């Protein structure tokens, strides 16, 4: 798919923007602080209903105004879809498709799929488990929009249950037999149900993603000319990349889940067995949970293990290797979504400046053939020749198409 048109009103620094794109590569060049990231962030927002830079919506609304509007015309399989999102301060956001009746923002998920590469991507390798869970969940929602609801439901139940654990734990300490304890079982059940749903989605995602990551890492790490070594899955030092899901269920996770040729977790039966496993584990750690007032089991405690060769990437991989792996995770996302039947729009926000010459060249080669690639850079020299498509200059609150 590709973005044919983007219109912004009071989104970040953009009071007004009206921009037509072509399929293929486009490069947006402009000095730092001119609003390039703001522009692509808007596209990312339409595709995930969240910003890749901030957790809340408030910073997305231009300072001094009350609402931001993003309008995107997306062409997919010869059909054009107009998606409109209104981000409002202090009330619910609204959405519309093809100028129809207002709908929930969630209903536009899937209309635009993007894979966004950003300088912050290194946190997927070097950051906290939460950074990797976010990567997984964003991809999961892109792939299957239903999970946006699952994710919100789970987070809500988790919050409620944790609040209860705190008060119930406190009550227990003071020797009271609290009502809270009776309701805890109810929340356990809901946590297990939504948790199993989310966990199943992630396990199947990782199972499907892992081979793409291995391939993509080999391609990025391979010397630029000899792309035929890529299929052998080795980097110059002979190491391959492997990703696997680490569940807080530990050895209680039913066997075979999360593996590429393993058991699917997302069907009725898979979810049921995960739900029972979660419930059993919750019962096992109940005392500990009450003691500490924290929910200790569930997808909010999980992680994505990244391994290069036989060493964990975090703490061992060099700066360059970490970048190769971060790029591989994004490229793998792109390949997975494409294999699912909807090629996403690739967005490369100021990433070339982060990479050495060899990785720049490899990345450029690997994405040049995509249906649409939007690249931002501070200077033209950062952008490899393969991607010199349509060129836009960004500055002074405007975007000019120059070639």
């Amino acid at each position, binding site marked *: 798919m590709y973005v044919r048109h983007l219109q912004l009103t009071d989104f970040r620094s953009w009071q007004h923007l009206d921009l037509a794109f072509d399929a293929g590569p486009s490069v947006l060049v402009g000095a730092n602080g001119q609003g390039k990231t703001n522009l692509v962030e808007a596209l990312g927002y339409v595709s995930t209903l969240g910003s890749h830079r901030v957790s809340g919506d408030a910073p997305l609304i231009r300072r001094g105004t009350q609402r931001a509007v993003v309008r995107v015309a997306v062409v997919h399989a010869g059909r054009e879809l107009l998606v409109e999102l209104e981000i409002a301060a*202090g009330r619910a956001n609204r959405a519309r498709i093809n100028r129809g009746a207002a709908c929930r923002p969630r209903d536009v998920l899937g209309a635009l799929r993007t894979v966004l590469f950003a300088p912050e991507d290194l946190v997927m390798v070097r950051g906290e488990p939460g950074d990797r869970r976010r990567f997984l969940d964003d991809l999961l929602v892109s792939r299957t929009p239903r999970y946006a609801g699952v994710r919100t*439901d789970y987070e809500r139940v988790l919050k*409620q249950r944790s609040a209860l654990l705190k008060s119930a734990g406190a009550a227990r300490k003071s020797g009271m037999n609290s009502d809270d304890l009776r*309701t805890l079982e109810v929340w356990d*059940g*809901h946590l297990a149900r939504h948790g199993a749903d989310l966990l199943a989605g992630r396990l199947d995602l990782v199972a499907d993603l892992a081979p793409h990551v291995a391939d993509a890492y080999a391609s990025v790490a391979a010397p630029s000319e000899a792309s035929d070594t890529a299929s052998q899955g080795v980097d110059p030092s002979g190491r391959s990349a492997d990703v696997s899901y680490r569940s807080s269920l530990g050895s209680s996770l039913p066997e075979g889940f999360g593996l590429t040729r393993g058991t699917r977790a997302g069907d009725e039966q898979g979810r049921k067995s995960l739900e029972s496993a979660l419930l059993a584990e919750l019962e096992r750690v109940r005392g500990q949970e009450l003691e500490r007032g924290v929910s200790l089991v569930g997808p909010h405690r999980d992680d994505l293990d990244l391994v290069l060769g036989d060493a964990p990437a975090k703490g061992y991989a060099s700066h360059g290797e970490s970048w190769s792996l971060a790029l591989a995770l994004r490229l793998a996302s792109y390949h997975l979504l494409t294999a699912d039947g909807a090629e996403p729009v690739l967005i490369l926000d100021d990433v070339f400046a982060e990479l050495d010459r060899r990785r720049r060249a490899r990345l450029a080669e690997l994405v040049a053939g995509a249906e649409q690639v939007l690249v931002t850079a501070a200077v033209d020299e950062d952008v490899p020749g393969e991607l010199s498509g349509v060129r836009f200059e960004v500055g002074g609150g405007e975007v000019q198409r120059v070639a």
Partner: protein
Amino acid sequence: MYEGPVQDLIDELGRLPGIGPKSAQRIAFHLLAAEPADVDRLQETLQKVKEGVVFCEICGNVSEQATCRICQDTRRDPKLVCVVEEPKDVLAVERTREFRGRYHVLGGALDPLSGVGPDQLRIRDLVTRIGTDGVTEVIIATDPNTEGEATATYLVRLLQDFPGLSVTRLASGLPMGGDLEFADELTLGRALSGRRSV
């Protein structure tokens, strides 16, 4: 900031649910410009609400007398009880004209974040009522969101062992994550007639 009473009025209005600072200001200036008679009437109504409206001692709905009109209405089936969170939900179900039983208003939903547990809701009253009024069917119509679902589960567990009592949950079809009061009449009516046994 405006001077004295005007700002006080804006602040008071702003405390009401669903009214932001802008609306509060708009309402305040509307009241300032309104006819004295209109303002008097509003004032009287507010007074009456606080003094004259009580909660029905049977079902917990808002009422003018000790028991509400629905609980007094002999044409309505006392064996069939619909459990809702708030009085506004009674209105929502009434609008469907599908329901001929009585209600039980819980006064909220399980919400640990706000310190609401079973004891803060009218659950004990419900159990007593089932035991004494010969109730044979309870329809749980809490909101289709996290807190409403948890409350429903709690009630189902609590009531499932009552001999001769059937407990049903409003069938799905209600938009998830929503509020019962915002479900349109048709959807709610359909959910009511298609309720499933739990």
